């Protein structure tokens, strides 16, 4: 009995720790400005006024922060374009490489594996200047492509690592059968192997997307105008503007978080399996 009760108190503490910071910010995003100064935990007179700033694309509102808020829809579209491209590149390059590493014994596979592991440990700040100069010399600054390429390279090693572990759990007999039936190795990969491994592919795809959505350093360096700026970079403008009311910032924060949050809830099981498998696999 006591054990049960203490378990639930323990669980409650964990839930409070995990949700309270975000819950407060979400509550504030529905408050009129004066309620924040009264240090409320719950909006007395809930309003969507903070959010309407963000969808007022044509608006002339002179409120502090409105100029940033107005650009949000465009920035979210930029983030979507970049994230989807990063996801696709990860899935194609990643599954090809992981398949070879998991299935086809070849000389140099250990070297490649170490190369991938090594590139995963390179910090972004270490290569930011050469990357910036590289993108500048190819005229790619302020384009989606520059951000897509940088995000793909830093997510790819993790993708390959996880997929390799996942692929090794699929029984070999499946492809043997396909090969006996006359498939080429590539045919066996595309027709038999990939369909079976869809859950793993979905997991790494979502990973890559969420990682790209949240990345900041390269996106900050490479993009300058709303033509390419993703939403994290736009949101960081709030950190530079001192007078923006926190209610408005909170609404923006919720908008940025919404998509990754929904995705992680929808694919909860796959994500947890994927991260867990990265160590045990």
């Amino acid at each position, binding site marked *: 009995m006591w054990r049960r009760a203490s378990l639930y108190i323990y669980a409650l503490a964990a839930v409070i720790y995990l949700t309270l910071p975000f819950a407060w910010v979400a509550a504030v995003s529905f408050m009129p400005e004066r309620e924040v100064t009264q240090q409320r935990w719950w909006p007395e007179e809930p309003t969507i006024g903070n959010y309407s700033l963000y969808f007022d694309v044509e608006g002339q509102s002179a409120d502090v922060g409105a100029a940033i808020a107005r650009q949000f829809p465009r920035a979210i579209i930029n983030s979507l374009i970049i994230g989807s491209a990063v996801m696709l590149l990860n899935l194609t390059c990643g599954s090809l490489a992981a398949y070879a590493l998991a299935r086809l014994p070849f000389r140099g596979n250990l070297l*490649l594996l170490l190369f991938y592991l090594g590139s995963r440990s390179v910090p972004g700040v270490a290569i930011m200047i050469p990357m910036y100069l590289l993108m500048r010399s190819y005229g790619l600054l302020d384009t989606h492509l520059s951000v897509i390429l940088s995000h793909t390279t830093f997510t790819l090693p993790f993708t390959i690592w996880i997929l390799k572990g996942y692929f090794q759990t699929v029984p070999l007999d499946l492809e043997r059968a396909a090969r006996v039936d006359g498939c080429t190795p590539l045919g066996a990969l595309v027709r038999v192997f990939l369909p079976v491994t869809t859950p793993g592919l979905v997991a790494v795809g979502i990973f890559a997307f969420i990682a790209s959505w949240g990345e900041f350093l390269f996106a900050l360096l490479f993009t300058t105008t709303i033509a390419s700026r993703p939403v994290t970079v736009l949101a960081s403008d709030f950190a530079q503007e001192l007078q923006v009311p926190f209610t408005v910032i909170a609404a923006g924060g919720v908008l940025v978080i919404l998509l990754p949050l929904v995705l992680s809830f929808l694919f909860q099981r796959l994500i947890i399996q994927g991260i867990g498998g990265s160590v045990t696999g």
Partner: protein
Amino acid sequence: MTVLRPFHLMSRTRDLLPLLLNLPAVILLLAFIAYPIGISFWMSLHRYNLRRPDQVYFHGLENYATILASSEFWNALWISLYFTFMAVLLVIVIAMAIALLLHESFRGRGVVRALLLIPWAIPGVVNGLMWVGLLGDYGAFNAMLEDSVAAVNYLFGINIVYTGMASPFVALNAAIGAHVWRSVPFACIIFLAAIQAIPTEQYRAARVDGATSWNRFRFITLPWLYHAVLVVAIFETMNGFRAFDLIYALTGGGPGDATHVIAWQTYKEAFARLDFGGANAYSYLITLITMTLAIIYIRLLYRRGLVQG
């Protein structure tokens, strides 16, 4: 040198397909990670300030000498070390506590597991902005901290003045707290996977032998988790040294230089002072530190035979 035998030739062509399959990934990583690292090193040996583009010349290890002699570097390194050490420690403890909880069966466990992903899904910049609010003048946590400082003052009859984020001590530790909050889920999931891999017979046997729950944790769970703890420790060490987006949004390096972690210092050096040579030397030092960690990581895993080629 022996004569090339036919089967040797055959295995050469057999090697071709897997290499081909790896080619796109390798090209991307060579172009955007390996090549920039090389360039970064080369530039770090030059005097290269964007303000004086006409004065770019080779001057050996001068940039490194300047950095190693500057108090800014040692300050940043010290802050990063403190930041990283505290973050690794707290992440391991909190994530372990939640993982052990999620391993128990109780009603609502699925809900807790779903909520676990909230901090993970939040981008670093937005996390920073969130904690600006939470710790700002009207923030929920600011009020709590104020009250607890007042309570401590009352209980011990002392007089600590709480100045919120204007205090270097509060700002640095708040940054650590926010960083830890976002890092806990990932570590927790790794721990949970490792705990679930422990054979249950061991617990049953221990229970039969009358082991206390602490002893069961100490002598069964912990040894089985050695590998997972190691992975999390190294992973979080790298993460700690990279902390940038959070600092950018939460403290902007301030107050003063209290939160000048090494990644922030490098960014400043490059894009505020436009000293690309010096900044590259900075980045190279970070690369060396993280690379050393990666090598230790790989070696430790290999020694335990946990990575197979």
